[in-house]
């Protein structure tokens, strides 16, 4: 009794949600006396018109792929992890420590080290909320939310009191050694003869994120752990019958989620900022929620949605530079996407279902 054809569920529903969100934002832009059509042109021109713009788009998209995949893994296990922000913050600390404390001879080794450290720190920050949910029944949404704020305070303390170089007023770490700088996407593409700007922060992390998306796909649908995770997410009680340990699965799912959130720092901290700043995550943890919802919790969908949001993010900056439209228009758009895909799915799905049922009936009637 699948009510919607799969393609409609996977493509049409998110697309309609997106269109509604765009229309609302268009009205908003018109309401503040600007031209929505001009705005969208500036955004497209800015994000895709040059390889520099495209590089920025892909840089942002990389962050969102990490956080989106993180949210989706927890979602699959029926856990709403809104702690991506805090987990990515801690991941940043791990990456920074790896880059600062170890004298890496080459970026490739540093990359391995920072991936391990980022994932470890991110996963560790998810561990306690996971354990509290599994063992004590503390609501994961509230605990992860609290851990976001605790992470921020902790990071503030670490940066101000421990990592701040002598004489600096900035709550930020020292710059990383040049040896740990990651190759830019432009440099890599240059090797295979594709001209691509290097005047943007896009780096090798984008390829890591794509590989990770494939990895997550294989994990969720082709491994025993992924099977157990999805089964637990669908029917917790039945998982017990099948011998799936709820405590373990909750902890595995959350640590995977936190670890992947932490990997975001490889892109943002090591790949772009080259030092640890207070707000290295810049809301990407939350955008992960929108991306996961819009991508229907599927790695492929998440990559597509991330690139879309990367475009919106970069486009938003271009808007702020080129017009008087503030970049927060993108926040509004993001809110609407979350609202329509995540909280109001029935509003789009139900009329669609009716439409498809009507069409099916007509088709049957026509055949008679």
């Amino acid at each position, binding site marked *: 009794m699948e009510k919607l054809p799969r393609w409609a569920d996977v493509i049409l529903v998110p697309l309609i949600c997106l269109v509604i969100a765009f229309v609302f934002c268009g009205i908003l832009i018109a309401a503040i006396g600007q031209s929505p059509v001009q705005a969208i042109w500036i955004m497209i021109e800015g994000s895709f018109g040059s390889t520099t713009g495209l590089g920025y788009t892909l840089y942002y998209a990389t962050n969102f792929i990490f956080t989106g995949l993180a949210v989706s893994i927890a979602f699959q296990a029926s856990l709403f992890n809104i702690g991506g922000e805090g987990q990515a913050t801690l991941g940043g600390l791990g990456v920074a420590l790896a880059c600062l404390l170890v004298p890496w001879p080459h970026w490739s080794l540093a990359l391995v080290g920072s991936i391990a450290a980022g994932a470890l720190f991110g996963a560790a920050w998810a561990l306690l909320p996971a354990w509290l949910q599994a063992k004590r029944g503390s609501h994961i949404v509230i605990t992860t939310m609290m851990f976001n704020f605790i992470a921020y305070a902790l990071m503030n303390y670490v940066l101000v009191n421990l990592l701040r170089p002598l004489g600096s007023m900035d709550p930020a770490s020292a710059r990383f050694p040049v040896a740990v700088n990651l190759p830019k996407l432009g440099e890599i593409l240059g090797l295979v003869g594709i001209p691509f700007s290097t005047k943007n922060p896009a780096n090798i992390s984008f390829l890591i994120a794509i590989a990770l998306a494939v990895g997550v796909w294989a994990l969720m649908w082709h491994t*025993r752990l992924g099977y157990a995770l999805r089964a637990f997410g669908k029917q917790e009680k039945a998982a017990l*019958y099948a011998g799936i*340990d709820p405590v373990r699965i909750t902890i595995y799912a959350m640590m995977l989620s936190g670890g992947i959130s932490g990997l975001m720092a490889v892109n943002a901290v090591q790949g772009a900022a080259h030092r640890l700043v207070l707000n290295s995550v810049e809301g990407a943890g939350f955008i992960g929620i929108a991306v996961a919802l819009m991508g229907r919790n599927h790695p492929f969908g998440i990559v597509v949605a991330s690139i879309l949001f990367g475009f919106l993010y970069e486009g938003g900056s271009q808007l702020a530079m080129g017009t008087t439209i503030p970049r927060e228009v993108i926040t509004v758009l993001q809110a609407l996407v979350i609202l329509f895909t995540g909280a109001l799915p029935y509003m789009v799905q139900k009329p669609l279902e009716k439409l498809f049922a009507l069409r099916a009936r007509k088709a049957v009637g026509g055949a008679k």
Partner: protein
Amino acid sequence: MATDTFGGRQATAAPYAIELKGISKSFGPVQANRDINIAVPRGTIHGIIGENGAGKSTLMSILYGFYKADAGEVFVGGHLTVIPDSQSAIRAGIGMVFQHFKLVQNFTVLENVILGAEDGPLLKSSLTRARAELEALSREYDLDVHPDAVIEDLSVGHQQRVEILKALYRCADILILDEPTGVLTPEEADHLFRILRGLRDQGKTVILITHKLREIMETTDNVSVMRRGTMVGTVRTTETSPEALAELMVGRKVLLEVEKRPCTPGREILRVEGLTVRTDGVVRLKGVSLTIRAGEILGIAGVAGNGQSELLEALGGIAQATGQITMNGVELPLKGHKANGQTRRAAGIAHVPEDRQSLGLIMDFAAWENVGFGYHNAPEYQKNALFMDNAALKADTAKKMATFDVRPPIPTLSAKSFSGGNQQKIVVAREIERNPDLLLIGQPTRGVDIGAIEFIHKQIVALRDAGKAVLLVSVELDEIMSLSDRILVMFDGKIMGERDPATTNERELGLLMAGMVGSDSTAKEA
């Protein structure tokens, strides 16, 4: 139609308390009620009996304003009444006691009773009035409920009485009870029936929905029988017999004969000693001991909620337990994370759970994923150390679907798209095809159509004939009688006794199920 030959008419010419004319209701393609006519005389206890899914609950939900009938008319006290919502039903003097109570757990009895029937915007006067009235009602009908008790501290039987009080406080003249004894102990059920008789004697009308013949025969004045959405007849209880009612219910002579060879028990497969299960601080299973040998079906009879589910769950590794279980001479863990479905399956125990939709299947998963459910670690479903072999699982599913005649035989269809019988076939196929030494099977035919019932019964017997052990739990006594080689009766978490199906009868088992050892059925009123 049999509905015209109404047999239970009272001498008075007063209008009926309730009269339904031509009620029909469908849910999509399923017609739950078809042209139902029924008349309930005032001041009687009227039974409505029928199998699961016969449409009894739908009919009562229409009467209580939960559903809108597609066609038909409702007369209350002789007046044509439209009941669009529960508020109107309450105004019309109809009260309903649902199978699952609608009580606020952390409220007191008093608060629950006045909820929705307050006198005004402030609570004080309502509470004072309700307290006095409650005490009066409680005395009058032997309800014995303290107004300040908090619901979650009360026994199930007392909670049900709170529901009755709620209805009475709202001045209900007509009280509908939906399967009221499913969750009650026999003593509580007897007390309930005493209360109902008291209500009738005060002039109230009671409608009792049940599928238990014994309750109908003992308690009601008239009884209407439903079958597959239609009303097949209404008779005076004193003028009918359980056999006649059963025939009306099922529509054919109840002959659940399963062909099977005589039992030849072999070695001992499972030994259970002092098995105890405690959930939420209540001991549900109280030191049960039993053994099952190869080549026999051990049937567990009992009213639902007397520890059978806990027995299955402890054996299946779902519930934590204490005691000892030995499978093929090896002791199995009962506590901690080692007591789980995986270790049980490794020990040769297969489990068809009582509730397939919440335990046995992941409803959103495809059939092939469900065939791997619980066996997702099995070596034949793995490609290598890292990845599962989904193709092998799909192929295996297609094979099992063919053997068990699952329709439609499409492995990629999600479990929720199959009918109850076909869902059950998927579960049974998954568990039996592994050739387990012991099969635990609970309510194998609940919500399953007749054709599938016979098929599933044959599979169970075939497994036993192949020299395997089967533990069968069922609340359907005839299923237990026709399949089992030995019968254990459970009551209140304990085993009341063992009987040989060849020499026992339903009456004897029924007494044991009611917690009575011995054969004097009149003793229970004492």
